[in-house]
């Protein structure tokens, strides 16, 4: 396959990102909703690398997000006195990735030997367990968490630290979405992508064909978890400037990530974006139009979409139109 053909499916993805970015930058008052939607798209994009490509559901996914959030908070808290300015945030990002990938390696090495539903059950405990560990062992401030707004002000001054939490953190999320999409397409185009497809479709047949299924599942798990860590570090810590265990270890984010990936189409490149758009827009505007009742309306809408498109919106389109264009642009 030619290079251009391999990566042509990035075009619609990047077009959506560019459009969202342009709307946010040019239309007054739109940056906040765009960032809100973008958070969900990025979350879906990161989770898709694992759930979409392997077909395994991880109910403990938010633990990686939380660890990433702590990674950034710890970096700002401990290294703000070094006088390296923006370097602290770089350290925070790296730390977030390292912490979430170490946890994912530990969880994956044990739990990924289990199949399907057993894996899902095993992972439910990870998130809750880790939260109580942090609180009980008084790790990283225990249940009081870490507040970094003071350190941020000391580091960057009042104005710049405000700018970081209201704008730069969202730009980071955009960047993560772009990188996650590129990483997804690279995986899909490599042997790893084919191996994961085989795992998703028929794990036993995959093994017999020489695919080391545990290895590839763990690779996808770590990739997905480190993106979750980055999202936690930027969309949570940099934006909120605090980390409380009761807020970050919230299973709601896992459920939202699952919904987004399923809505859009698991395992497709464009799926999480479509899913994130649908979910983000509905959630944002329903909470404005019908404050307090948004979930009551959102739930039946989501059920309707899932029933109408059991393979997700993108999955359904791909099944319906199997021509040259679909193969090229809808991965």
């Amino acid at each position, binding site marked *: *396959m030619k290079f251009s053909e391999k990566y042509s499916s990035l075009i619609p993805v990047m077009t959506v990102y560019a459009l969202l970015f342009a709307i946010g930058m040019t239309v007054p008052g739109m940056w906040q909703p765009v960032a809100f939607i973008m958070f969900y798209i990025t979350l879906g994009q990161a989770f898709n690398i694992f759930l979409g490509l392997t077909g395994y559901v991880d109910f403990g996914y938010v633990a990686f997000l939380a660890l990433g959030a702590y990674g950034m908070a710890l970096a700002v808290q401990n290294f703000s006195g070094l006088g390296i300015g923006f370097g602290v945030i770089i350290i925070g990002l790296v730390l977030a990735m390292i912490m979430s990938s170490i946890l994912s390696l530990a969880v994956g090495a044990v739990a990924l030997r289990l199949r399907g539903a057993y894996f899902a059950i095993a992972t439910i405990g990870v998130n809750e367990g880790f939260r109580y560990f942090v609180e009980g062992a008084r790790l990283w401030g225990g249940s009081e968490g870490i507040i970094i707004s003071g350190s941020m002000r000391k580091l960057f001054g009042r104005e710049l630290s405000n700018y970081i939490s209201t704008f730069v953190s969202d730009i980071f999320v955009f960047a993560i979405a772009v990188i996650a999409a590129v990483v997804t397409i690279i995986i899909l*185009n*490599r*042997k790893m992508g*084919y*191996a994961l*497809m*085989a795992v998703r*479709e*028929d794990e*036993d*047949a*995959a*093994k*017999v*064909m*020489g*695919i*080391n*299924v545990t290895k590839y599942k763990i690779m996808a798990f770590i990739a997905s978890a480190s993106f979750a860590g980055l999202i936690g570090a930027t969309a949570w810590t940099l934006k909120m400037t605090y980390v409380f265990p009761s807020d970050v270890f919230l299973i709601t984010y896992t459920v939202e990530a699952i919904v987004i990936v399923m809505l859009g189409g698991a395992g497709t490149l464009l799926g999480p974006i479509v899913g994130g758009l649908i979910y983000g827009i509905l959630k944002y505007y329903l909470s404005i139009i019908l404050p307090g009742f948004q979930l009551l309306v959102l739930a039946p809408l989501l059920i309707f979409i899932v029933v109408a498109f059991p393979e997700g919106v993108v999955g359904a389109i791909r099944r319906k139109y*199997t021509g040259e264009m679909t*193969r090229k642009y809808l991965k």
Partner: protein
Amino acid sequence: MEILRLENVTKRFGGLVAVNNVSFTIEKGEAIGIVGPNGSGKTTLYNLINGVYIPDEGQIFFEGNDITNLPPHARAPLGMARTFQIPRPFGSATTIENVAVGAMFGYANASVDEALEIAENYLKLVGLYEKRHTEAGKLTPLEKRLMEVARALAMKPKLLLLDEVMAGMNPTDIDRLINLLKKIRMEEDISIVAMVEHLMHAITKFAERVIVMHQGKKLLEGPTMEVLNNPKVIEVYLGKKVVQNAEG
């Protein structure tokens, strides 16, 4: 030169002895038939050879190396490939992607681009080239079988295990497949083991040597025609009375 050797292999499931103290050797480039009625342990035998099951007793050697405890994914790259009795395509992927997976992870160990090329060649060989972009799950049962043969061949195996690959095919298709397998065996010097329950006619055309399984044990082994005409084999398939009547 030997490619596969089983030494006193036994596999039990609870009280049932599915494969009972079976030993045999397959030479490089041989065409072997494994026959036996339903429940005689043929499929278990395949699962032991490619590592889905680990034997309770006995040892398995591939090209002289002990592979008894290797997991399946470590055996395929050594040069082993199989098809399944009930085809197991990667349903939502296209036919060419299915076959390419074989080339990527089998003994062929090809890169993605090479694998897609190899896949095209084998799809042409089995006559599925036109369907290369069709979802494998949407192929007809016959096409799925052919796809599995192409996928197994794309792995460039030294030993190919076919599990009831000709079941449900009409005589023309069977002849075509047998000729294809014969040709590939000659060209690429691979050993092919075909397992069948009832298609004796096909086995006589294909196999040089036959192993007969019965109730988990190896009943007989030898040149095809000689073995299939043995009264013991006829008894296994048709019962004692038929043999007596034929003799009397």
